[in-house]
């Protein structure tokens, strides 16, 4: 990939001997030689650009600020009241900045009978897990076969699914480590809910994979060029939407963080920036869910006219609003109703969808794989 900017090379001051690089044991000396070539410098700059700017830190911070502002304003508008108003320039835009700064200045409390190491590890893990899943999503085509993604692989959908299934372990760790009855109940509920909605998530992705013919998200988007997958797998879209809402626990299905019953689920004991991490990971999850939904069903970056990235961001913005609107329009399901919906209602729907996909592809040969 050729970048417009000229790359800096190692400075060799004429009068002095060149800087001796350390001599390292066999596996590393090859690495040192590779680091001296200009190709490595090009790769390093591009990777840091991806890590720090687009799918990385800058985008997450900006998206989180907009998401917090949008959600609280939307939530308030539905309540016929004005949300955060005095904090930032455009009617309270900097609300998350104020919350973040306040959380930075808070004291970090460690409950004395809790398992200290795992207690402090859990929020860091939950945040990193959310950020890692962003690494495998292709955002827009850069070249004929090239895509703007941190790590390109043919099985990116499988990796994301694997990362989704890691979430209950971290919540159970947090629930168990903070040694509080309510967090234990929250952890058990997390285990029930996330496992119950893992299977419909997989099955709804399966129907898309059958239509696209490969696990690679980029290929899935390429094959949606003329017809978005929402048309043939509409049932799959519904099942996927509901199960991602359960995975990132948004309102109608958020018995993990049910304020009214168990105080704050596994996150009851966290204060200060640890809670900031948890809140940030919640909004990163909303970003991932809307990216995945738009890539799998709404034809990722396909769209007339504008740059592919702009199309993806538009779709993702609208979808993240849909994820957030549940908080103010639906009361919360009880745990047995929720699990019953997951096991008995979503899975048959997803199976019907997989059957339709198979019929479309292999029997009627409508969609050429």
């Amino acid at each position: 990939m050729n970048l417009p900017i000229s790359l800096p090379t190692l400075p060799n001051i004429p009068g002095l001997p060149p800087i001796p690089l350390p001599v390292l044991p066999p596996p590393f000396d090859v690495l040192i030689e590779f680091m001296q070539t200009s190709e490595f410098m090009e790769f390093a700059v591009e990777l840091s650009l991806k890590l720090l700017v687009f799918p990385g830190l800058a985008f997450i911070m900006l998206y989180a600020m907009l998401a917090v502002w949008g959600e609280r304003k939307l939530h308030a508008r539905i309540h016929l009241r004005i949300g955060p108003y005095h904090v930032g320039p455009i009617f309270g835009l900097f609300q998350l900045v104020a919350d973040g700064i306040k959380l930075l200045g808070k004291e970090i409390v460690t409950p004395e009978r809790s398992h200290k190491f795992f207690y402090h590890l859990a929020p860091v893990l939950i945040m990193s897990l959310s950020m890692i899943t962003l690494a495998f999503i292709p955002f827009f085509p850069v070249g004929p076969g090239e895509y703007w993604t941190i790590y390109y692989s043919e099985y990116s959908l499988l990796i994301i699914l694997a990362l989704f299934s890691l979430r209950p372990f971290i919540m159970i760790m947090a629930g168990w480590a903070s040694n509080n009855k309510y967090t234990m109940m929250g952890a058990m509920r997390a285990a029930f809910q996330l496992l119950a909605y893992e299977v419909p998530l997989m099955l709804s992705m399966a129907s898309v994979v059958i239509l696209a013919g490969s696990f690679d998200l980029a290929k899935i988007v390429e094959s949606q060029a003329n017809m978005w997958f929402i048309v043939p797998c509409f049932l799959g879209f519904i099942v996927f939407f509901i199960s991602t809402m359960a995975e990132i626990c948004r309102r109608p299905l958020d018995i993990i963080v049910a304020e009214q019953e168990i105080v704050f689920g596994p996150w009851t004991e966290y204060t200060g920036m640890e809670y900031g991490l948890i809140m940030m990971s919640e909004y990163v999850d909303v970003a991932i869910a809307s990216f995945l939904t738009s890539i799998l069903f709404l034809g990722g970056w396909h769209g007339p006219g504008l740059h592919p990235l702009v199309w993806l961001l538009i779709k993702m913005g609208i979808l993240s609003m849909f994820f957030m609107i549940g908080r103010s329009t639906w009361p919360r399901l009880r745990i047995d109703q929720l699990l019953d919906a997951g096991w008995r209602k979503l899975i048959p729907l997803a199976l019907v969808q997989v059957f339709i996909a198979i019929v479309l592809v292999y029997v009627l040969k409508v969609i050429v794989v």
Partner: protein
Amino acid sequence: MSLKPIERIRTKISCWKPIKDMLNWGRAWSLWWVHYETGCCCPEIMSLVAARFDHERLGAIPFPTLRECDLIIIEGVVTKKMAKRLRMIYDQMPDPKYVIALGDCAITGGFWWDSYSVVQGVDKVVPVDVYVPGCPPRPEQILQGFRLLQKKIMEGK
């Protein structure tokens, strides 16, 4: 893995002037208060959350767990049985914490001056930052209480 070094750095940084102003600005404009009803001023808190006197304009939201809150609103009369729990809850809240005492009964035990089970004045139990008189105080008075607290935080008390 203790967090002592992080704590030490945080205290050292936070006494530098611009950093301190920024921190105080953040604390003032995002007061998360714990929903803990102690007495008979609850109807006014409900109209504070409602549309007409919306207190979320000041960035304040009621929060379920007291671990993440930094403001506790004492709504009304505090009896002796409630005072023990109030003290326990005040100790569990993380460090920069503030207290608003609502209503005459909380400030001086007003209406129940001769009752055998009422604590005469809540500052015998917890240090109070802002007193809001009235029984029950009108939502505008409570909003003014919030503004006073914000001014106090901005000055860094």
